[in-house]
């Protein structure tokens, strides 16, 4: 990195004068800009080894994709602050970031105020062949005070003109004994404000081991789920991207699944109250999530239509955006409500209060491993039984029910995976996932068909449905119907993969208790 720390002993005016006297440099007038270090909420770029740095004077935005692993940095200027991948006009950049950002938004993790002095190395044709920046950066700390970072001198070569920048850095090294700095400015800034590059993941943590009491282990598990719910609240309320709400809802569903499946562990009375409370959260977050899903699907819907009809679908998008906003407002009100806050508080109190040493609840004090074995085995048995009962002639409803059974098994496997050999349990989860994918897609398609139908009715009522749009939506429904049939066919083969002999043996070996002798 061609970057140096400028010690206080070297005044920048003197440095500039000396540089200008030695090299053909032109000085731009100093400017005050913002430097943003942006990334997704879960630091997807950083985890891939990149810093996404944006310099802006509020009229143009200079994007720098800086590799922490020595790749050449990429630079792009644009006219606005990009939030999603699609906001970046360059397809090349989009391709580069695709697969990392996906649908997550970029947000500011660090914002620096920068006083920037620019010296341009200009050749005899008047062309800039290198740039030298002296940058004084400040950033607000938690206590509200501004923290000043060490002044940096940054030399940026122009492609194909390495010589000029080399001359400049040699000069700094020789005349001022400056040493290139290893730590990027981002790291100093992060340190200055104690920013923890969060290790957020919606994967489950497993805060227990084999012999722990079931009630204690479960409380620990539920507590981490509560943590995930809370961590995603701000992003959900600010609607930064749709993943916050999605992850929040996943944690709610996991919580509900744990509560409903594992019985005789907690006192029934307290449980009922929480069960209905979490069901309420599931409900009030649902409509916004639906709108998110349809907005995410929109491009695909449009692409599936014949070219001529594609534009006719835009009224649907407007409708979705409008209703997403309306639903989101209700959702925010609910999250901020006393009821919601009080619920969380009492839930936390329940989860953090110690479990009674003696209890009449028969499963409470069992080792968690035993509980896990039994429940996983039962869920598996149920899935097999119901799965085998599916025939070509049976109603769709049966497949929907099966999806729920499969999902319950999935949650259980995930909750308790650390109690089993990692490789083997992961393999089972991945096989189950394949089965779930067909079931999920199948369910999704019929939900989508119904929703599109509902949207048509609502749009008509709102006077937002013209004949062209209606025709486009009808065609969409027709296409989705076709796909449903294909999914149903796929189910047979996936289920037979899932239920083959080696899988059955594996489930038996991992989860079946001697004595619990139900044959499959």
């Amino acid at each position, binding site marked *: 990195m061609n970057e140096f720390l400028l010690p206080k002993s070297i005044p920048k005016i003197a440095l500039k004068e000396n540089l200008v006297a030695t090299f053909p440099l032109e000085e731009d007038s100093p400017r005050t800009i913002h430097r943003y270090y942006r990334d997704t909420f879960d630091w997807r770029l950083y985890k891939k080894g990149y810093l996404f740095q944006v310099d802006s004077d509020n009229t143009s935005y200079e994007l720098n994709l800086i590799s922490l692993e020595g790749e050449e940095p990429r630079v792009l200027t644009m006219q606005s602050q990009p939030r999603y991948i699609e906001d970046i006009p360059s397809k*090349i950049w989009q391709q580069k970031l695709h697969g990392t950002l996906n649908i997550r938004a970029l947000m500011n993790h660090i914002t620096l105020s920068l006083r920037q002095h620019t010296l341009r190395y200009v050749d005899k044709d008047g062309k800039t062949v290198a740039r030298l920046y002296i940058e004084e950066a400040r950033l607000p700390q938690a206590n509200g005070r501004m923290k000043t970072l060490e002044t940096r001198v940054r030399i940026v070569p122009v492609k194909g*003109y390495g010589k000029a920048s080399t001359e400049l850095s040699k000069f700094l090294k020789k005349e001022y004994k400056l040493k290139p700095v290893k730590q990027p400015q981002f790291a100093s800034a992060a340190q200055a404000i104690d920013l923890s590059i969060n290790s957020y993941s919606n994967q489950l943590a497993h805060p227990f081991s084999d012999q722990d009491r079931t009630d204690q282990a479960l409380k620990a598990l539920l507590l981490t789920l509560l943590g995930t719910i809370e961590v995603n609240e701000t992003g959900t309320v600010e609607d930064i991207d749709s993943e916050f709400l999605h992850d929040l809802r996943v944690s709610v569903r996991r919580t509900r699944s744990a509560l409903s499946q594992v019985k005789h562990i907690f006192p029934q009375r307290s449980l009922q109250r929480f069960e209905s409370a979490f069901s309420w959260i599931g409900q009030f977050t649902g409509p916004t999530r639906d709108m998110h899903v349809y907005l995410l699907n929109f491009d695909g819907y449009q692409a599936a239509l014949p070219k001529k009809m594609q534009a006719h679908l835009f009224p649907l998008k407007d409708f979705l955006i409008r209703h997403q906003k309306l639903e989101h407002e209700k959702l925010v009100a609910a999250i901020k409500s006393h009821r919601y806050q009080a619920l969380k508080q009492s839930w936390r109190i329940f989860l953090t209060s110690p479990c009674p040493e003696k209890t009449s609840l028969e499963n409470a004090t069992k080792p968690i491993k035993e509980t896990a074995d039994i429940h996983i085995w039962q869920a598996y048995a149920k899935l097999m039984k119901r799965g085998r009962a599916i025939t070509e002639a049976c109603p769709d409803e049966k497949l929907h029910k099966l999806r729920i059974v499969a999902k319950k098994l999935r949650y259980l496997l995930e909750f308790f995976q650390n109690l089993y050999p990692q490789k083997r349990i992961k393999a089972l989860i991945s096989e189950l996932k394949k089965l779930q994918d067909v079931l999920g897609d199948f369910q999704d398609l019929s939900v989508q068909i119904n929703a599109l139908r509902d949207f048509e009715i609502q749009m008509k009522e709102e006077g937002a449905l013209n004949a062209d749009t209606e025709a486009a939506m009808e065609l969409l429904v027709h296409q989705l119907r076709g796909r449903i049939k294909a999914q149903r066919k796929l189910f047979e083969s996936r289920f037979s993969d899932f239920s083959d002999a080696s899988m059955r043996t594996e489930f038996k070996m991992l989860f079946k208790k001697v004595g619990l002798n139900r044959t499959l």
Partner: protein
Amino acid sequence: MKVLACYNIKGGVGKTTTSVNLSYICANEGARVLVWDLDPQGAASFYFRIKPKVKGGVEKLFDKKPDVYDAIKGTDYLNIDLLPADFSYRNMDILLESSKKPRSRFRTILSALEDEYDYVFLDCPPSFSMVSESVFFVSDALLIPTIPTTLSLRTLEQVLKYTDDKILKKLAILPFFSMVDRRKNMHKLICERPPKMGVKFLEAFIPYASEVERMGIERRPILDYAGHSKSAKCYLALWQEIKERLKL
């Protein structure tokens, strides 16, 4: 990556001026842009204040696995790079003639840059040759500045004849009027009723203007020194229309 060539058999019609200004506009929209100055005279390189020199010359670019990115220079504009002209480009034709697969040469060079640029503007020399044929094969569109005179229209007919080839089905041909002087009767007549030649002239045109000429002194795109001028607006309109026509 979209490849747009500024081409005409005729010289001095505004090819280079178009390459430089459109690349600037396109880059301003936030795209990564490369200008390849194919003319050994190096006018585009001159406008960007870059020496018309490629180390190793055209032979190096025609390597089996050319290190093209190495030869590229950054301009004063962050989103624009330039592959400079080189005196050796005057031998390009001969090299292409003797090459086994003349048509794939340019393709090889440009595909090495696929991950770097959204747009490549080719500033072509005024001729019909193996070079221009190569250009036709790698380009998505030919932007053909045409002066509204009967003679110019005849050269345009020649271009159309050359490019009327089944293999070039995907090549869009976009002629537009350049250096238009409304005071001249013939210019006026031709612009108002472009002749039917099987291609549609773009609506946008570039008037003859002194601020365009000034580019030679400024050595910058017009939009950088006369962003609010009429000519600047004409180039913006031209770019908009090109994007619409090519569905970019």
